[in-house]
């Protein structure tokens, strides 16, 4: 039942084989090399290993080549240095303390196991960062603009904030934005998902424990309250917390102090608490599943996250942010055609922004060609046009507003029926020509590219150009430019 691979580089054969035995014993697959020059780098990626154990180096040149290759991946596994590297290894190899960890020899297996556990968490943390939205809530829909104003209002004070909203609506993004806009921003932001942690572990996770507090507590450990000292503690899914834990949390909020599990020393803490839940806490109070006194403690400043289906105008901007982030992290290039975006704007998004992020990541991985049309979407996102008015998209943050649309809209909302009514056919034609003009503009007048942006065949677009009097002559001229 082996889990992951560990690369052991050590020219000391006795030590190397001891290390390998130990790794084997804790269910890792060791790959032992005296000289890393024997490894063909083209056939590997740095993340093939959970960690690299570094002992005696027989050839500095091959090691340096391996090190340079390793460091090209910013998320490379940590290097666990044997004692001869403890004093100077990090500096000599140009690694920081998050990338170079000392390993004592003889190796004690609980410590090695703990280092590998931390290496695994480090990787998961880094991977999660790649796919989470940074820099606060994205978009310009009224609900999001209101949210931004409220965040700016509450951030400077140490007020407890309660963030409400459906799953995936970005509650942690909002909590982080509050922290980043507060005077605590230089201090830790510690998040905890109360719903994902088994009840019996929650107390020690929140408050820490002393050595020997329970079976398995081989060392004393800080809880998240202590880790967040001076900063912000984000308690997600607070509605899933058991009643006994709610009592303990209430006490900390009231007295600003707590004890570790198995300890009797009272620890003072300076932590701002932001809680969140997708549940209806008032209903839970009625049912006797949530303490009313805790609710009032938390509900000092409630924030409501708008669901994605109520701010579909932000869809293009969200897609932009998500695709750029994936691209920046080398996770693939993906572009959505206009018809794909239109189909997505007709979907209800029960999983909100997280669901959108998952979809974009999926498209980036599975469509190496990079261009996604509506027909490339998984079936549930291919929502047919039922004739209902489509959404007027906001222009995206990193692009100039599409000129044609801005002119067509001229302050009006394209999806709103004016009091006096309108001529639908003419209205749709206006939107269509505006989008075609915008596409031509963006494609530098190349009709074939504009057609791609609009999810049309080239011949269909040529026909439309003729229909709207955008003219063949014009088209020929434009194509000639390219």
């Amino acid at each position, binding site marked *: 039942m*082996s889990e*992951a691979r560990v690369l052991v580089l050590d020219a000391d054969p006795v030590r190397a084989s001891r290390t390998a035995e130990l790794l084997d014993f804790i*269910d890792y697959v060791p790959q032992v090399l005296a000289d890393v020059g024997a490894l063909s780098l083209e056939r590997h990626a740095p993340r093939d290993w959970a960690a690299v154990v570094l002992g005696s180096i027989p050839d500095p040149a091959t090691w340096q080549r391996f090190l340079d290759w390793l460091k090209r991946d910013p998320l490379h596994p940590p290097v666990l240095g044997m004692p001869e590297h403890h004093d100077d290894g990090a500096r000599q190899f140009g690694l920081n303390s998050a990338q170079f960890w000392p390993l004592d020899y003889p190796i004690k297996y609980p410590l090695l196991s703990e280092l590998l556990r931390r290496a695994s*968490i480090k990787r998961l943390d880094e*991977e999660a960062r790649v796919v989470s939205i940074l820099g606060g809530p994205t978009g310009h829909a009224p609900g999001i603009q209101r949210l931004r104003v409220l965040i700016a209002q509450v951030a400077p004070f140490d007020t407890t904030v309660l963030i409400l909203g459906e799953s995936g609506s970005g509650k942690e993004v909002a909590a982080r934005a509050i922290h980043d806009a507060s005077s605590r921003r230089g201090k830790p932001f510690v998040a905890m998902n109360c719903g994902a942690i088994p009840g019996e572990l929650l107390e020690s996770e929140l408050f820490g424990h002393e050595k020997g507090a329970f079976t398995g507590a081989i060392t004393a450990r800080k809880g998240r309250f202590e880790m967040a000292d001076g900063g912000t503690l984000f308690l997600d899914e607070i509605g899933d917390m058991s009643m006994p834990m709610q009592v303990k949390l209430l006490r900390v909020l009231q007295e600003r102090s707590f004890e570790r599990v198995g300890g009797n020393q009272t620890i003072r803490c300076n932590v701002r608490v932001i809680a969140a839940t997708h549940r209806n806490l008032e209903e839970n109070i009625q049912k006797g599943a949530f303490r009313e006194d805790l609710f009032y403690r938390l509900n000092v400043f409630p924030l409501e996250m708008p669901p994605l289906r109520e701010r579909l105008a932000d869809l293009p901007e969200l897609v932009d942010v998500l695709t750029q982030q994936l691209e920046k992290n080398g996770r693939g290039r993906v572009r959505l055609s206009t018809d794909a975006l239109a189909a997505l704007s007709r979907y209800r998004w029960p999983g909100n922004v*997280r*669901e959108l992020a*998952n979809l974009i990541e999926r498209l980036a*991985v599975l469509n190496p060609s990079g261009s996604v049309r509506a027909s490339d979407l*998984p079936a549930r996102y291919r929502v047919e046009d039922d004739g209902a008015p489509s959404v007027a998209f906001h222009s995206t943050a990193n692009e100039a507003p599409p000129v044609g649309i801005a002119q067509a809209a001229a302050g009006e909302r394209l999806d709103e029926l004016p009091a006096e009514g309108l001529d639908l056919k003419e209205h749709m034609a206006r939107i269509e020509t505006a989008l075609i003009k915008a596409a031509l503009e963006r494609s530098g007048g190349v009709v074939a590219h504009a057609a791609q942006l609009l999810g049309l065949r080239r011949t269909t677009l040529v026909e439309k150009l003729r229909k709207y009097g955008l003219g063949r002559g014009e088209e020929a001229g434009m194509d000639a430019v390219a």
Partner: protein
Amino acid sequence: MRQLRVLLVDDHEGFLNAAQRQLRNLPWVSVVGRALNGLEAVRLTEQLTPDAVLMDLAMPEMGGLQATRLIKAQTKPPFVVIASHFDDPQHREHAASAGADGFVSKMFYVQEVVPILEKLAGDDSHV
């Protein structure tokens, strides 16, 4: 109790064999496929539409959490259980935020996975 169609995902063939042997004792479980990495898991999930995917957390190339996120974006996604070498709050939180529906320790794989599958097979409300 309904018949449960299960996809097994792990980069170690030996682990897949052991898991499959154990699950064979449950007449209401049929293993419909095996995948050796995350990308293959995504492809097979779409093709075989299993009821549940038992997914290894750490695999080279595409790991179990990324595969879970991708699978959850498909039409009618299955129930996904992450199997992890390490069982601690941090690993559980990461699995939950990737959208996994369950979490088991690989040390106690069979003991922990069977009750989860039992519950799923008895609960027809899940897609």
